[in-house]
């Protein structure tokens, strides 16, 4: 050890880890017997502790100044607004539901008209006299729209078009086809989930896994304590999900996206077609769990 160093310099070098291993041992031995050195050591240690404490307080002060937005569902007025919103929602829902029904009927009419325009005149079936149309030629399209949805005389409409021979360009059909969802065929959640599990279990189709891109919201729900649902491309976790960390794993494969929830050291399947609150079912398949853990660790 360099004996020319003052106690102050020696302690400074020791606290800054600038001494060699031998010098450190020597210093520590001296510390046991040299009271002056010990006093100097305690003094400088207090200084460093002070520096650390000031920095700790500075960081905490910085954090305290960050505004935290309380989630809307936890605010006092939320319940009142929620009740009003639900009532309004039911009203609007009923209104639009009825409106959608009207559109559906009009679409049917359009499709029938389209068929007529594309049909060869010779192939048009003979219409019985009894259902000869009653509309005037001038306002045929308007009346079809107005009258047909109420009475639904589809045969009558066909007869009308048959008689008038409408040109193809007059009416542009708008066919609204609903998205075909396979899961609608089988409403049994259990059997659906088993299918997904088997599919993912192979992991051959998976091209890549990415961090979840789906928007997530946690909602405290007394009735649904451990449920989920998807609505407008947003995942709602219903229950006390703010108490422990959770992860959403999104897998992209050739057959589409699959979602999994990791919570409390367990994995749960998430079916993106579930728009109603659905209970979370723990994945019991060990090989699938193992694969998910690998994916999870690779994501980090």
């Amino acid at each position, binding site marked *: 050890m360099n004996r020319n160093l003052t106690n*102050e310099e020696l302690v*400074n070098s020791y606290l800054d880890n600038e001494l060699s291993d031998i010098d450190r041992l020597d210093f520590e031995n001296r510390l046991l017997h040299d009271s002056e050195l010990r*006093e100097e050591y*305690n*003094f*400088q240690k*207090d*200084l*460093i*502790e*002070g*520096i*650390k*404490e*000031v*920095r*700790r307080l*500075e*960081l*905490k002060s*910085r*954090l*305290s100044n*960050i505004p*935290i937005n309380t*989630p809307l569902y936890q605010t006092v007025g939320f319940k009142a607004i929620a009740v009003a919103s639900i009532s309004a929602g039911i009203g609007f829902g009923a209104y639009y539901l009825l409106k959608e029904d009207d559109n559906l009927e009009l679409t049917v009419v359009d499709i029938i008209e389209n068929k007529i325009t594309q049909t060869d005149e010779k192939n048009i079936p003979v219409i019985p006299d009894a259902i000869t149309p009653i509309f005037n030629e001038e306002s045929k399209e308007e009346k079809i729209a107005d009258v047909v949805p109420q009475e639904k005389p589809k045969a009558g409409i066909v007869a009308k078009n048959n008689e008038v021979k409408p040109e193809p360009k007059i009416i542009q059909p708008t066919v609204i086809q609903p998205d075909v969802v396979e899961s609608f065929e089988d409403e049994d959640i259990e059997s659906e989930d088993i299918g997904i599990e088997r599919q993912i279990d192979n992991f051959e189709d998976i091209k890549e896994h990415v*961090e979840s891109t789906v928007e997530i919201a946690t909602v405290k729900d007394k009735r649904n304590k451990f449920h989920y649902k998807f609505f407008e491309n947003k995942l709602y976790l219903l229950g006390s999900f*703010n*108490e*422990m*960390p959770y*992860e959403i794993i999104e897998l992209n494969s050739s057959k589409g996206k699959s979602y999994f929830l990791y919570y409390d050291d367990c994995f749960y399947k998430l079916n993106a077609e579930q728009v109603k609150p659905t209970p979370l079912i723990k994945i019991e398949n060990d090989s699938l769990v193992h694969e998910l853990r690998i994916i999870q660790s690779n994501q*980090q």
Partner: protein
Amino acid sequence: MKDSEVLNKLSKGDESALDYLYKKYYRMMTNLVIKNNGTEQEAKDIYQDALVVFWQKATSGNLVLTSKISTFLYSICLNLWRKELERKSRLIHDQKDGAQYSNHESEEKAKIIHDCINEMGETCRKILSYHYFDGLSMTDIAEKLGYANTDTAKTKKYKCKQKLYQLVKSKYSKSDFLD
């Protein structure tokens, strides 16, 4: 922002990453304390302490995460809250005057040093904090404070430490600090 990005920013002493984490996990971490007999204020304190611990580990470069940041933070909060509950429990049963006096004395010492640190310029405060608390390398400190090289940062740190040393010694008598 991915965990790896956050960690990378933290390791360079980027405080905006700390702000990001604070907001992201505030409700989850504070709920942990609140659900375990803690008040909102206690929950906030514990969460802030946990983040400061996490910050210190991340900036010093000694942190190797084997879990998500949220999981790690959660475990820190849990440990800190357990310790706090134990401390509160001890406080109730500890009626020894001697211990109270000793705490008071150390608090006095700390206050004296705090005042001196706050009297120093901002640059000195930063360089000493970055070195002794954050554990940043001299290269990172030089970069953060805009110094030409690490030697400049080292010299500046030494001078600042000396300044604090002299300031504390000159203002207060030796007997205030030495046992």
